[in-house]
């Protein structure tokens, strides 16, 4: 790493270490004088907040593991022993349990910031992809952690989530049995989840190291989304951002400790204080709140892919072709594209309604079962869409070709992205509701917007959103107060 020429340190001990392993030189370079854009807003605190959260989760997790027993007969009791008898056990467990929620709050804000200010764009594509990887690992870790207390929601959540894999054609059942280590959720499942739950945070920490490494190669993005040009645009990381991050972390902690001490079970589910019972299913199985949007996407598929929907998909792909080609926006005939989309839409509607269950319980058949029969059933579609909704983030940097990063200078993208945030909350509410009545079509519309944003919206905006004049430099924008409104449109 930092093995080039090195300045000497005054302190003898530091100098002794540094001349043998230049760790202090590295720290000084990456966290001391590291040039950081001077116009960060408070959204840029969340990287530091997430670092702290990961640390808190690992430390409290290790201490909890000293008392936890990963055995189906003992797990629940061992958690209660932590709550009642272990010194500060209740504190450690509540910090850990609520920590998961606050970790996700922070990561969602962090992802939103990356999306809104175009941090995923060239040259930070790999940095973004490491980030999405961390998010996926976090989801897996959180899910397995929720199983460990072995309450009713732990057990039935594990039951539902491992059942996703049974949707895989041909080998689904075998994979599910392999994942569970048995024919149902049992001791074997619990012990492997514990082993992996203990391991994964360290994998996350390793990917975080890569994430930060990649960040320090390209340097940070900033709210204006323009590149750093001169020294005037930046500040040394220390003290400016060490102090600002400390302040941000403390404010975040205020909310966090509020939950830990005064409402420690609000974000959880009452049923998880009932020991797991394979013979009694809870009336309403819901995942933790941070999984709800994806759970809603899963359940939005009350329909599968049948012939009309497949044709609709093919037509959509055809309509999208020019957006991914080298054609300029003048060369694309929007009218043709619009008509093609409309035709695709008709096929989608036919495909959807041919599978629609009427209240009498009969299927609304248009043209016989040949048309309505789904060859990718609803369950598999739901699972694919749920994983797809995260996987699509990996390719986002390559779908968005618009030259401007920050939403501040992309009015169309800005509205679309803010609507996506709203959509995410709508999905979250849908995921918490029973899959019946009004909530089903609402979640389907919300799911369509989520998918449409990435698959159609982003490529479309890349071609058609006008490019606005950007400030010349960060310094100029900051000193002249041009950080918020775009200047005029390019002539």
């Amino acid at each position: 790493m930092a093995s080039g020429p090195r300045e000497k340190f005054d302190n003898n001990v530091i100098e002794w270490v540094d001349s043998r392993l230049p760790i202090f030189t590295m720290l000084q370079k990456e966290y001391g004088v590291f040039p950081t854009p001077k116009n960060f807003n408070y959204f840029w605190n969340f990287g530091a907040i997430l670092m702290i959260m990961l640390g808190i989760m690992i430390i409290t997790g290790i201490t909890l593991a000293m008392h936890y027993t990963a055995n189906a007969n003992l797990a629940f009791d061992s958690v209660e022993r932590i709550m009642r008898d272990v010194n500060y056990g209740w504190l450690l467990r509540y910090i850990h349990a609520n920590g998961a929620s606050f970790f996700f709050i922070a990561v969602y804000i962090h992802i939103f910031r990356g999306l809104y200010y175009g941090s995923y764009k060239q040259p930070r594509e790999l940095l973004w992809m490491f980030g999405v990887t961390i998010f996926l690992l976090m989801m897996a870790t959180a899910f397995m952690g929720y199983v460990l207390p072995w309450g009713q929601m732990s057990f039935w959540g594990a039951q539902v989530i491992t059942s996703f894999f049974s949707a895989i054609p041909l080998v689904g059942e075998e994979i599910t049995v392999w994942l569970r280590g048995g024919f149902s959720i049992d001791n074997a499942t619990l012990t492997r989840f514990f082993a992996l739950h203990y391991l994964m945070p360290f994998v996350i920490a390793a990917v975080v190291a890569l994430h930060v490494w990649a960040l320090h190669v390209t340097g940070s993005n900033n709210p204006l989304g323009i590149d750093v040009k001169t020294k005037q645009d930046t500040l040394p990381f220390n003290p400016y951002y060490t102090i600002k991050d400390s302040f941000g972390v403390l404010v975040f902690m205020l909310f966090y400790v509020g939950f830990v001490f005064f409402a420690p079970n609000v974000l959880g589910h009452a049923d998880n204080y009932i020991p797991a019972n394979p013979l009694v299913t809870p009336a309403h199985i819901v995942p933790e709140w941070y999984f709800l949007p994806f759970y809603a996407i899963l359940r939005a598929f009350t329909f599968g892919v049948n012939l009309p929907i497949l044709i609709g998909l093919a037509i959509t792909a055809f309509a999208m072709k020019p957006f991914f080609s080298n054609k300029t926006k003048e060369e694309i005939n929007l009218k043709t594209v619009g008509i093609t989309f409309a035709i695709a839409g008709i096929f989608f509607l036919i495909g959807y309604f041919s599978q629609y269950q009427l209240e009498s319980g009969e299927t609304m058949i248009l043209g016989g079962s040949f048309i309505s029969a789904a060859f990718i059933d609803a369950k598999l579609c739901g699972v694919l869409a749920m994983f797809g909704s995260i996987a699509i983030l990996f390719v986002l940097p390559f779908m968005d070709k618009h030259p401007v990063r920050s939403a501040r200078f992309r009015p169309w993208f800005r509205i679309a992205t803010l609507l996506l945030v709203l959509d995410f909350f709508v999905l979250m509410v849908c995921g918490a509701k029973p899959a019946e009545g009004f909530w089903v079509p609402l979640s389907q519309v919300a799911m369509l917007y989520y998918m449409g944003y990435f698959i159609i919206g982003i490529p479309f905006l890349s071609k058609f959103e006008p490019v606005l004049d950007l400030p010349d430099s960060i310094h100029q924008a900051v000193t002249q107060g041009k950080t918020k409104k775009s200047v005029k449109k390019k002539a």
Partner: protein
Amino acid sequence: MTDTPQKISDNDKKEEPTRRDFLYLTAASMGAVAVGSIAWPLVNQMSPAKDTLALATTEVDIAPVEVGQAITVMWRGAPVFIRHRTDEEIMKARSVKLADLRDPQTDEERVQKEKWLVMTGICTHLGCVPLGQKPSDPKGDYNGWFCPCHGSHYDTSGRIRKGPAPTNLVIPPYEFTGDTVVKIG
């Protein structure tokens, strides 16, 4: 998190240094307090939990133990021997000359009531449990206890008489809370 920034002190050296120093010092010391108070639960969680402490003392009803019999009770994860000694055993224990003992201690020092010998049943050599509690056990050359691991012999007062063990069997803290109730710990 709270390292006092070096760069700054150059910049505002002129203006109100006391207020600035006060701010930085307060922030730094609050950081230290925060780290300290977070560390304590993390350290203290490893101390014995409340359920463990609740078993730190144990009460034993010794009424059913007949003369010549012994019982073993568990206390803090270790066996405690309680022996209802016969007159002969007491006499034997008390007739030994202190000079003959490796770890000189009178029998009177080792018991509260001469009929009852209460001691930790762990050989002071390498921690095995000596034999001698059951009538069928070998009791060693001194009719007390015999450690099968390396052949230490203990007498009827639990004192080391022969073999590698350096000291007598340990007497745990205990008291008689009733005529026939012993509270250990």
